[in-house]
């Protein structure tokens, strides 16, 4: 059992939790993830490690409430426990020897991009951080992002924060201003990562993306997280989750992400109905 030592609501649908898991915290590195199972009937879901503190023995996860599992997880309070929490899984990001990097986060992806920016900044890399959200109310981690980057650009789809645009427009602008990046790290929805990759491919800037497909074991056993990278089948859980974005077959990844859409909907609906009954 793994204790929730801190819970913080970041916005209406995004929650941060610090979990006491000292052995995981001791080994965690940026780019890695954990898999958790909330309770006995629960499914196993992967979540990227958003932060970790080896002294306190805690691992931070940030999740968006999108389905039954994240909804059940969000109902737990500080001091309560998660049944299973396994990690750190996946290959850590390779961030050594870079002078200047643009780190891009889209929506919840910002939470995953943040530890990478933090690690880069610690190593003395100049970090430009671009974060995109649908609207102002959904902006998360603004203070944290600013603390680890030399330049922070936050854009919103609807312009409600006073800076309308997509992450690609922001990147385009930074490049037009003469910024030269050794690497771009893009983390967010598949559509966003694809858009960034299309742009950076043209400009020949190495781009790393973090893939987050459906997983079960997270150790290379089931193969359900497979994707095509450079024409070869790779397992996101052990070969990734970081991949060269210019080599990723995003069309296939997008199709595969829809595999269990119907079942996810059914699970969510039944859960919501149950909740309504309990309220009555």
């Amino acid at each position: 059992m793994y204790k929730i030592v801190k819970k913080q609501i970041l916005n209406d649908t995004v929650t941060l939790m610090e979990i006491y898991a000292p052995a995981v915290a001791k080994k965690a590195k940026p780019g890695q993830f954990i898999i958790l199972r909330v309770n006995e009937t629960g499914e196993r879901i992967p979540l990227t490690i958003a932060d970790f503190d080896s002294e306190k023995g805690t691992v931070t996860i940030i999740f968006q409430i999108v389905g039954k599992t994240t909804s059940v997880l969000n109902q737990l309070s500080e001091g309560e426990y998660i049944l299973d929490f396994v990690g750190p899984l996946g290959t850590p990001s390779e961030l050594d020897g870079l002078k200047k990097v643009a780190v891009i986060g889209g929506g919840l992806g910002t939470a995953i991009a943040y530890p990478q920016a933090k690690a880069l900044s610690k190593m003395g890399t100049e970090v430009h951080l671009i974060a995109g959200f649908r609207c102002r109310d959904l902006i998360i981690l603004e203070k944290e992002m600013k603390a680890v980057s030399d330049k922070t650009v936050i854009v919103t789809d609807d312009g409600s924060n006073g800076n309308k645009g997509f992450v690609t427009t922001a990147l385009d602008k930074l490049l037009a201003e003469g910024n030269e990046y050794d690497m771009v790290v893009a983390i967010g929805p598949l559509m966003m990562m694809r858009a960034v990759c299309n742009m950076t491919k043209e400009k020949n800037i190495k781009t790393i993306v973090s893939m987050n497909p459906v997983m079960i074991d997270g150790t290379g056993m089931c193969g359900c997280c497979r994707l095509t990278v450079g024409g070869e089948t790779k397992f996101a859980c052990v070969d990734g989750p970081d991949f060269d974005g210019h080599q990723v077959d995003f069309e296939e990844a997008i199709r595969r992400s829809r595999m269990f859409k119907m079942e996810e909907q059914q699970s969510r609906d039944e859960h919501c109905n149950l909740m309504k009954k309990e309220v009555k």
Partner: protein
Amino acid sequence: MPNMSLNKVKMPEQAPNVRNKNFEEVSLGYTKEMAIEEAERCLNCKNPKCIEGCPVNVKIPDFIGRIASGDFDGAYDVISETNALPAICGRVCPQENQCEGKCVRAIKGESVAIGRLERFVADYKMNKGDKKVPEIKKNGHKVAVIGAGPAGLTCAGDLAKMGYDVTVFEAFHTPGGVLMYGIPQFRLPKEIVQEEIDFLSKLGVEIRTNSVVGRIVSIDELFEEGYEAVFIGSGAGLPSFMKIEGENLNGVYSANEFLTRINLMKAYKFPEYDTPIRIGKNVAVLGGGNVAMDAARSAKRLGAENVYIVYRRSEDEMPARKEEVHHAKEEETQFVLLTNPTRIIDDGEGGVSGMECIKMQLGEPDASGRRRPEKIENSEFVLNVDTVVVAIGQSPNPLIKKTTPNLETQKWGGIVADEKTGATSIKGVYAGGDAVTGAATVILAMGSGKTAAKSIDEYIKGLQ
């Protein structure tokens, strides 16, 4: 006077058209009377070949003799001298290639039903609930076991009985390995596996779940933490794919994914359990082993109308247990033999609309001794399926190798280990089971766990 009936006493089973709609155990086991009747078929040979056929050398005529005289507890004691998991072996061992394959009764008629008798004895003891926990004198030495599957559990149990403090590191949230995630409930009820695991806990074995060795702790660090020896029983978890077009379409599963969803995550109880599984109307399972049979029979139980086993050789070459093939047929699995898939066809939306196959014929024997399948040119046809399960084998998980640089492995990933001792290229590190041999059987894994436990004991005693 022995019972000279040419046939085994039949074991009661759920009727095929009933059981193919539920996940309850198919075979119901002998009654006491049936067990005694079957035990009387044993001739108690002076030079019993059956014992040689058993990878852990259970004293077969001895335990069968005790059943015949009604001493079921005594029979259990004989089996458990050499086999720690009889309830499991009685159900999943390929007896026809082992003990029963050597039985003299099989020369004319059927062999003695050794597997069924073993199962009877184990179940009898389990139901009685008086399995004794032996008195153990702790010796103060620590051993780490990686993987809580058949190899690791056996090794851990044997070492615990010798007095070692054993910690088992398991990657999943539940111990049991392939017994939990791979073999379905209808063939091996999970309650039985759990009972065996609980017994290990009573022996003082500590099982740490959610612990992926290689990630949370390395083998070097285990030694730093005071473990004096390590046993690697991490299994063959890496699924093989056909490497054909369309394999990443939605609706194509590795057998590992398919069975893990169903068995470990209980997707057959969705939405009571949260993990889903999608089964179409027409399911093709590729492969001819036990895993393929398990996947096909599971698909049928989940409501598939047509389930096909697609196998490139003929039925004679199938590696599956005979009983599983027989059960699969009874449950209306259709065998499409001498057939190999060439591509999986996209339905236009990323799902499967069919599978193109080519017909095969058998040529000369290959390295495995089985006749090599060869393509028949221009014999392509399309099998109408919407779900494909790839069950063509697994190789060892590369995670431990990747994080233990000086551990010697074969080209195909298997850990190099001495057959007689289980010793690897690293001092104090032993290995066994599928991690060494590639996908094999539960009993072979158990045998190697046993061997390694003995070697580890000798090794640690030698250190003093």
